[in-house]
């Protein structure tokens, strides 16, 4: 465990970058340091591997003062990922990744074999091994950066705004990939970002820092969203924290209606029975995949044209996606009803905004009783 114990960083000109910060960073989970520029988050990260020395206070790694061991030994035991990847432009991808193993004295062959193994792990094609960094896209370079940090299998990974220089689509891919890798490897990750959405998505614990390097709140993301410590945190979380908090509630408990669903080859009798007390029916193809909405009176058995149906938009996956995804589907749906599908994409049921609203109220009541909420995707 990394323990930051009332650490202060004061520069010769009097600027205080970090002010009496204490944090206990739990093992094998992602701890995010987030805050506006000048809040000392990068300084804090760099004090962990002593790229910056604290002015006061101590940093304990597994109970031992980090100053007890030689600085380069300490650094080689911690992977480091930096914004823009910071790759060595004069070395091939495989040699970039093999850097720390080589510094640790591994043979060239062993280090390169390990590097190739890691390329696969971070989703890089083996054909890129002999390329140079300039031949890779920003997203690929950042994957190399992650692979390089993991090369010597360090227990700790320090990540300094690693994904902030890539476009949003690539960033989401890299974030998902990091969560997947973390599921497999279980590293102790300290992750710095200025993006609260990224913090909420990745963090097991999130430390919000305020300008001047003081800790504003240290909590799991769900708690941060439900109970911000003060006006600064609330402001930093942004206006839609209520909506974002729904990401932490599963859609599993939603009451899905299956009655208003008819297949495209339904008989007149089936249509009549389904459409008795609902304004809209969901039409599916013969396999059960949703095609679109229609009012019951517009449907005539045998002549249903998929092109004439109201679009049903993107459905949510029942149980896997969050209430946020379900609500989003309902809001975007022209009928106000969200379509739930199973893992194979077959319609599992439909649910109205009203029903989702009731589920949200229920979840909030539940959430305030137990703060232990786990993150669901979507």
């Amino acid at each position, binding site marked *: 465990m990394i323990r930051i114990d009332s650490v202060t960083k004061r520069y010769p000109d009097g600027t205080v970058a970090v002010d009496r910060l204490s944090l206990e960073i739990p093992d094998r989970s992602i701890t995010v340091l987030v805050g506006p520029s000048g809040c000392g988050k990068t300084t804090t990260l760099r004090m962990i591997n002593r790229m910056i020395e604290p002015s006061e206070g101590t940093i304990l790694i597994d109970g031992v003062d980090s100053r007890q061991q030689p600085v380069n030994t300490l650094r080689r035991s911690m992977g480091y990922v930096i914004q823009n990847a910071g790759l060595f432009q004069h070395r091939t991808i495989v040699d970039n990744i093999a850097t*720390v193993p080589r510094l640790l004295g591994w043979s060239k062959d062993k280090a390169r074999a390990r590097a190739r193994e890691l390329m696969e792990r971070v989703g890089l094609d083996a054909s890129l091994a002999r390329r140079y960094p300039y031949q890779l896209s920003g997203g690929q370079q950042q994957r190399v950066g992650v692979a*390089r940090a993991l090369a010597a299998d360090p227990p700790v990974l320090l990540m300094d705004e690693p994904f902030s220089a890539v476009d949003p689509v690539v960033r989401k891919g890299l974030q998902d990939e990091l969560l997947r890798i973390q599921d497999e490897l279980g590293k102790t990750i300290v992750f710095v970002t200025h993006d609260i959405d990224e913090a909420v998505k990745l963090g097991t614990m999130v430390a919000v820092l305020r300008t001047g390097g003081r800790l504003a709140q240290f909590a799991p993301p769900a708690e941060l969203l439900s109970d911000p410590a003060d006006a600064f945190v609330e402001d930093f979380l942004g206006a839609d924290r209520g909506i974002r908090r729904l990401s932490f509630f599963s859609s599993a408990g939603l009451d899905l209606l299956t009655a208003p669903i008819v297949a495209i080859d339904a008989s007149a009798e089936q249509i009549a029975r389904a459409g008795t007390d609902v304004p809209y029916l969901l039409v599916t193809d013969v396999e059960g995949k949703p095609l679109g909405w229609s009012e019951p009176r517009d449907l005539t058995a045998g002549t249903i044209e998929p092109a004439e149906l109201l679009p049903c938009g993107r459905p949510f996956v029942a149980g896997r996606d969050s209430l946020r995804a379900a609500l989003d589907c309902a809001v975007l749906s022209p009928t106000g009803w969200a379509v739930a599908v199973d893992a194979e994409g077959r319609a599992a049921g439909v649910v109205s905004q009203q029903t989702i609203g009731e589920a949200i109220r229920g979840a909030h009541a539940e959430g305030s009783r137990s703060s232990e909420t786990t993150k669901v995707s979507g």
Partner: protein
Amino acid sequence: MNWDRMFDIPSDLQHSWIGLVGLHLREALLPVLAGLVISLPLAQLCVRFRWLYPPVLWVTTVLYAIPSLAFFVLLIDYTGQTELTVMIPLTVYSLVVLVPAIVDAVRSVPQETLAAATAMGFGPVRRYVQVQLPIAVPAIIAGLRVATVSSISLVSIGALIGNQGALGNLINDANIYNRPELAVNAVLSMAALAMLADGLLVAVRMLLTPWMPRRARTTPKAGRPDSAAAALEDAAR
């Protein structure tokens, strides 16, 4: 002009044409090499201690402004009428190109790359040798190209101190013996040597930097040798 006798070198030079070419290359390239050996640590000091760079730059520029003839007068008491007397000023002149080229090159290594190297546990020496210097190679070679070409043309000035100018001595002899073809030989040979040396340096850079994007292979910042300007400048010297 008697073209048949273009390669008929007067005996007072005590060398064949090939001999003069070898001598010329030695007198031109050793100073550049010496300049590089001096510039590398000097530039590193300038990178390390920023305040040192402006005075170093000032001194190299002032030294460059001293005409070689003045240097010869100064040196001749100590080193006599020898190649060394020619090579010392040439070494000094090469610094004006090499020091800023290397300082700029080493400074232009991206901050992220340096931070990443430090974070991975590179000590300062290892970081310099394995990261900064290799990344600076293209700009250093760009500087070497300018220094080399200029040095090749400057050697001829050695003719002033008792035939120590290698191919440049031919110009002197052309005057003495009224044989203009010798001057033509000198000029063409030196130009050919300069182009050859320049081409070789380009080839070396290509070999050393497979990691550079093909499009951006020339380094505009450090400046490519502008032979016309260099020649004018050398003529004035």
